[in-house]
């Protein structure tokens, strides 16, 4: 299994790097507005009302951004978690941890594509 995953490493690494970029460049603003300011009512009225939020999300660029914000950071987190577990426990659990991490990332990618498509 490690050998099979090793053959996919270039793709996984590219997704991992993309996740760093999207996570670092876009997530802070998203967290500040959607996850903190909006729930606390700190945004101007209607800034993230359902109508405006839905309009932003269904814009082609909006769909792409949302898809990127789900898929790339998750792949980054999955790959990083695998290496973090290796740091803590050595290579002995990698036969289970690696497929679990990347399997979860594949599932979330599929769900994200369907969810964004459903918007």
């Amino acid at each position, binding site marked *: 299994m490690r050998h099979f995953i090793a053959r996919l490493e270039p793709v996984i690494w590219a997704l991992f790097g993309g*996740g*760093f970029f999207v*996570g*670092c*460049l*876009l*997530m*802070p*603003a*998203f*967290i*500040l*507005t*959607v*996850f*903190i*300011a*909006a*729930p*606390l009512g700190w*945004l*101007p009225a*209607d*800034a*993230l009302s*359902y*109508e*405006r*939020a*839905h309009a*932003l*999300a269904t814009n082609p660029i909006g769909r792409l951004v*949302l898809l990127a*914000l*789900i*898929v*790339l*950071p*998750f792949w*980054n*987190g*999955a790959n*990083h*978690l695998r*290496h*973090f577990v290796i*740091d*803590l426990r*050595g*290579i002995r659990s990698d036969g289970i941890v690696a497929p679990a991490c990347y399997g979860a990332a594949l599932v*979330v990618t599929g*769900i*994200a594509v369907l*969810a*964004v498509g*459903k*918007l």
Partner: protein
Amino acid sequence: MGRPADPLAMSPSRPGRTRTAPPVMPAEFPAQGRYRSYMLFGACCVFFLLSSLLVLRVVDALATGPDAWDELLRQFRHPLYLAYNVAALAGFVFTARRFLFQLFAKSQPPRIGPFPRPPLAVFPPVLGAAWLAATALLFCILWGAFP
């Protein structure tokens, strides 16, 4: 002395003529010295995983309808969600600092095809500006600065 390393770490494919003592990890690994910052960087993967799932929840609520959206925002007001998101914000900033400003510049090859790499000193201000610009742009869009 550090904790035991993998028993086969740095071992030759055929054993030498005498018995060797098994390898040990670096003494300060994992929680002391510079390794502490490295392990914190690794632990921030949790924020990448969970925050991306929260974005998925946002997409799902928007696809469901206005009631689901209002309910999601109501749930995000819970102190645990707010505490997580403040921690996540700190985690992403910490990761950005390490990735963008410590690792990225020197990870670029001297040449990609016909294009030479810019001087290393150019990277931090350019990446910093890009980071600020992207954050400000997304923030303004979501804040409602652009209709």
